[in-house]
Protein backbone atom coordinates (compact mmCIF):
# COMPACT_ATOMS: atom_id res chain seq x y z
CA UNK A 1 0.00 0.00 0.00
CA UNK A 2 1.15 3.53 -0.66
CA UNK A 3 1.02 6.33 1.88
CA UNK A 4 2.08 9.93 2.40
CA UNK A 5 2.84 11.82 5.60
CA UNK A 6 2.89 15.59 5.99
CA UNK A 7 4.13 16.01 9.56
CA UNK A 8 3.22 19.68 9.94
CA UNK A 9 -0.37 20.87 10.00
CA UNK A 10 0.80 24.48 9.64
CA UNK A 11 3.97 26.28 8.62
CA UNK A 12 4.48 29.97 9.33
CA UNK A 13 7.12 32.00 7.53
CA UNK A 14 7.90 35.67 7.04
CA UNK A 15 7.66 37.13 3.55
CA UNK A 16 11.02 37.04 1.81
CA UNK A 17 12.30 34.11 3.85
CA UNK A 18 12.76 30.63 2.38
CA UNK A 19 10.02 28.10 3.01
CA UNK A 20 9.93 24.32 3.27
CA UNK A 21 6.86 22.11 3.45
CA UNK A 22 7.74 18.54 4.37
CA UNK A 23 6.50 15.30 2.85
CA UNK A 24 7.56 11.69 3.31
CA UNK A 25 6.17 8.76 1.40
CA UNK A 26 5.94 4.99 1.36
CA UNK A 27 5.48 2.82 -1.74
CA UNK A 28 6.56 -0.70 -2.56
CA UNK A 29 8.18 0.27 -5.85
CA UNK A 30 9.46 3.48 -7.40
CA UNK A 31 7.35 6.53 -6.62
CA UNK A 32 5.71 9.18 -8.72
CA UNK A 33 5.35 12.22 -6.46
CA UNK A 34 3.21 15.31 -6.79
CA UNK A 35 2.57 18.60 -5.04
CA UNK A 36 -0.74 20.42 -5.26
CA UNK A 37 -1.89 23.75 -3.84
CA UNK A 38 -5.40 24.69 -2.75
CA UNK A 39 -6.57 28.26 -2.29
CA UNK A 40 -9.71 28.96 -0.24
CA UNK A 41 -12.92 27.71 -1.87
CA UNK A 42 -11.01 26.39 -4.89
CA UNK A 43 -10.02 23.01 -6.25
CA UNK A 44 -6.49 21.67 -6.09
CA UNK A 45 -3.98 23.03 -8.58
CA UNK A 46 -1.03 21.00 -9.80
CA UNK A 47 2.37 22.51 -8.83
CA UNK A 48 5.01 19.98 -9.81
CA UNK A 49 5.85 16.31 -10.06
CA UNK A 50 8.76 13.94 -9.80
CA UNK A 51 8.74 11.04 -12.24
CA UNK A 52 12.39 10.21 -12.80
CA UNK A 53 15.70 11.92 -13.41
CA UNK A 54 16.95 15.03 -11.65
CA UNK A 55 16.21 14.98 -7.92
CA UNK A 56 15.44 18.71 -7.92
CA UNK A 57 12.16 19.42 -9.66
CA UNK A 58 11.06 22.91 -10.60
CA UNK A 59 7.39 23.83 -10.80
CA UNK A 60 4.94 26.68 -11.00
CA UNK A 61 5.14 30.01 -9.14
CA UNK A 62 8.83 29.58 -8.24
CA UNK A 63 8.32 26.39 -6.23
CA UNK A 64 10.69 23.46 -6.36
CA UNK A 65 10.88 20.11 -4.63
CA UNK A 66 13.76 17.84 -3.75
CA UNK A 67 13.39 14.08 -4.08
CA UNK A 68 15.48 12.09 -1.62
CA UNK A 69 15.19 8.35 -2.13
CA UNK A 70 17.20 7.32 0.93
CA UNK A 71 15.05 9.45 3.22
CA UNK A 72 11.85 8.75 1.22
CA UNK A 73 11.12 12.46 1.20
CA UNK A 74 9.85 15.01 -1.28
CA UNK A 75 9.97 18.39 0.44
CA UNK A 76 8.50 21.46 -1.24
CA UNK A 77 10.67 24.57 -1.19
CA UNK A 78 10.72 28.18 -2.30
CA UNK A 79 13.70 30.52 -1.87
CA UNK A 80 11.64 33.61 -1.05
CA UNK A 81 8.06 33.34 0.23
CA UNK A 82 5.26 35.69 -0.77
CA UNK A 83 2.11 36.52 1.15
CA UNK A 84 0.19 35.23 -1.88
CA UNK A 85 1.74 31.77 -1.33
CA UNK A 86 -0.47 31.35 1.73
CA UNK A 87 -2.60 28.30 0.98
CA UNK A 88 -3.09 24.61 1.75
CA UNK A 89 -0.48 22.33 0.22
CA UNK A 90 -0.90 18.63 -0.49
CA UNK A 91 1.70 16.03 -1.29
CA UNK A 92 0.59 12.93 -3.23
CA UNK A 93 2.19 9.66 -4.35
CA UNK A 94 1.50 6.77 -6.63
CA UNK A 95 3.52 3.73 -7.50
CA UNK A 96 5.22 4.03 -10.86
CA UNK A 97 4.71 0.44 -11.94
CA UNK A 98 0.93 0.45 -11.92
CA UNK A 99 -0.95 -0.22 -15.14
CA UNK A 100 -4.58 -0.80 -15.90
CA UNK A 101 -6.30 0.35 -12.73
CA UNK A 102 -3.41 2.57 -11.80
CA UNK A 103 -3.05 6.33 -11.52
CA UNK A 104 -4.70 6.34 -8.12
CA UNK A 105 -3.05 9.01 -6.04
CA UNK A 106 -2.74 8.86 -2.28
CA UNK A 107 -2.77 12.31 -0.68
CA UNK A 108 -1.33 13.57 2.56
CA UNK A 109 -3.50 15.42 5.05
CA UNK A 110 -2.24 18.80 3.90
CA UNK A 111 -0.09 21.57 5.35
CA UNK A 112 -1.44 25.08 5.79
CA UNK A 113 1.22 27.61 4.78
CA UNK A 114 0.90 31.09 6.26
CA UNK A 115 3.22 33.80 4.97
CA UNK A 116 3.18 36.99 6.99
CA UNK A 117 4.55 40.47 6.34
Amino acid sequence: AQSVAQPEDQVNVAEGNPLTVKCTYSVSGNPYLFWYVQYPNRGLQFLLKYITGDNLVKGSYGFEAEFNKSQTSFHLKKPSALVSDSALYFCAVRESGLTGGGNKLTFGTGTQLKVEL
Partner: protein
Amino acid sequence: DAGITQSPRYKITETGRQVTLMCHQTWSHSYMFWYRQDLGHGLRLIYYSAAADITDKGEVPDGYVVSRSKTENFPLTLESATRSQTSVYFCASSEPPGLAGGTRGEQYFGPGTRLTVT
Protein backbone atom coordinates in the same frame (compact mmCIF):
# COMPACT_ATOMS: atom_id res chain seq x y z
CA ASP B 1 -11.62 26.28 -22.31
CA ALA B 2 -14.00 25.10 -19.58
CA GLY B 3 -11.78 22.32 -18.28
CA ILE B 4 -13.52 20.46 -15.50
CA THR B 5 -16.72 21.72 -13.92
CA GLN B 6 -18.85 20.55 -11.02
CA SER B 7 -22.45 21.26 -10.15
CA PRO B 8 -23.96 22.29 -7.91
CA ARG B 9 -21.25 24.22 -6.08
CA TYR B 10 -23.26 24.19 -2.86
CA LYS B 11 -25.97 21.78 -1.75
CA ILE B 12 -27.95 21.34 1.44
CA THR B 13 -30.00 18.18 1.74
CA GLU B 14 -31.77 16.20 4.41
CA THR B 15 -30.80 12.83 5.85
CA GLY B 16 -32.20 10.01 3.74
CA ARG B 17 -32.52 11.99 0.53
CA GLN B 18 -30.85 10.98 -2.69
CA VAL B 19 -28.52 13.56 -4.17
CA THR B 20 -26.41 13.55 -7.32
CA LEU B 21 -23.27 15.58 -7.83
CA MET B 22 -22.30 16.26 -11.41
CA CYS B 23 -18.85 16.38 -12.98
CA HIS B 24 -18.06 17.31 -16.57
CA GLN B 25 -14.69 17.59 -18.31
CA THR B 26 -13.86 18.90 -21.77
CA TRP B 27 -10.38 17.41 -22.18
CA SER B 28 -11.50 13.88 -23.17
CA HIS B 29 -9.39 12.48 -20.34
CA SER B 30 -9.98 8.78 -19.94
CA TYR B 31 -9.55 8.75 -16.15
CA MET B 32 -11.93 10.45 -13.75
CA PHE B 33 -12.00 10.45 -9.96
CA TRP B 34 -14.21 11.45 -7.05
CA TYR B 35 -12.65 12.54 -3.74
CA ARG B 36 -14.02 13.86 -0.52
CA GLN B 37 -12.08 16.36 1.56
CA ASP B 38 -12.47 16.37 5.33
CA LEU B 39 -10.44 18.15 7.97
CA GLY B 40 -7.71 15.88 9.28
CA HIS B 41 -8.11 13.37 6.46
CA GLY B 42 -6.93 15.24 3.43
CA LEU B 43 -8.44 13.89 0.23
CA ARG B 44 -9.83 10.37 0.15
CA LEU B 45 -10.73 8.57 -3.05
CA ILE B 46 -14.35 7.47 -3.30
CA TYR B 47 -14.54 6.00 -6.82
CA TYR B 48 -12.61 6.25 -10.03
CA SER B 49 -13.14 5.39 -13.66
CA ALA B 50 -10.55 4.36 -16.23
CA ALA B 51 -12.91 4.83 -19.20
CA ALA B 52 -16.60 4.97 -20.07
CA ASP B 53 -18.46 2.07 -18.46
CA ILE B 54 -15.43 1.13 -16.32
CA THR B 55 -15.56 2.13 -12.67
CA ASP B 56 -13.92 0.89 -9.50
CA LYS B 57 -14.01 1.53 -5.77
CA GLY B 58 -11.56 3.72 -3.98
CA GLU B 59 -10.81 4.04 -0.29
CA VAL B 60 -14.27 5.13 0.97
CA PRO B 61 -16.98 3.93 -1.46
CA ASP B 62 -19.74 2.94 0.98
CA GLY B 63 -22.95 4.91 0.49
CA TYR B 64 -21.97 6.19 -2.95
CA VAL B 65 -22.80 5.11 -6.49
CA VAL B 66 -21.17 6.23 -9.74
CA SER B 67 -21.79 5.75 -13.41
CA ARG B 68 -19.97 6.75 -16.55
CA SER B 69 -21.94 6.34 -19.74
CA LYS B 70 -20.00 9.11 -21.51
CA THR B 71 -16.31 9.91 -21.31
CA GLU B 72 -16.93 13.52 -20.31
CA ASN B 73 -19.37 12.93 -17.44
CA PHE B 74 -18.91 11.18 -14.10
CA PRO B 75 -21.85 11.73 -11.72
CA LEU B 76 -21.67 10.74 -8.07
CA THR B 77 -24.89 9.73 -6.30
CA LEU B 78 -25.50 9.50 -2.59
CA GLU B 79 -28.38 7.04 -2.48
CA SER B 80 -29.52 7.90 1.06
CA ALA B 81 -27.54 10.80 2.45
CA THR B 82 -26.20 10.66 5.99
CA ARG B 83 -24.69 13.40 8.15
CA SER B 84 -21.29 11.70 7.89
CA GLN B 85 -21.36 12.47 4.18
CA THR B 86 -21.24 16.19 4.86
CA SER B 87 -18.03 17.14 3.09
CA VAL B 88 -16.46 18.93 0.16
CA TYR B 89 -16.45 16.72 -2.94
CA PHE B 90 -13.90 17.09 -5.70
CA CYS B 91 -13.92 15.58 -9.13
CA ALA B 92 -10.66 15.16 -11.05
CA SER B 93 -9.53 13.85 -14.39
CA SER B 94 -6.28 12.72 -15.96
CA GLU B 95 -4.73 11.11 -18.99
CA PRO B 96 -4.03 7.40 -18.66
CA PRO B 97 -0.76 6.48 -16.94
CA GLY B 98 0.25 4.32 -19.87
CA LEU B 99 2.34 1.21 -19.87
CA ALA B 100 4.62 0.69 -16.88
CA GLY B 101 3.09 3.69 -15.15
CA GLY B 102 3.78 6.19 -17.87
CA THR B 103 5.33 9.62 -17.47
CA ARG B 104 2.22 11.66 -17.04
CA GLY B 105 -0.67 11.15 -14.66
CA GLU B 106 -1.14 14.44 -12.87
CA GLN B 107 -4.77 14.94 -12.06
CA TYR B 108 -6.74 18.10 -12.74
CA PHE B 109 -9.39 19.10 -10.25
CA GLY B 110 -12.77 20.74 -10.43
CA PRO B 111 -13.77 23.59 -8.09
CA GLY B 112 -15.61 21.28 -5.67
CA THR B 113 -19.12 20.85 -4.29
CA ARG B 114 -19.76 21.69 -0.66
CA LEU B 115 -22.45 19.29 0.55
CA THR B 116 -24.23 19.65 3.87
CA VAL B 117 -26.52 16.88 5.10
CA THR B 118 -28.88 18.00 7.87
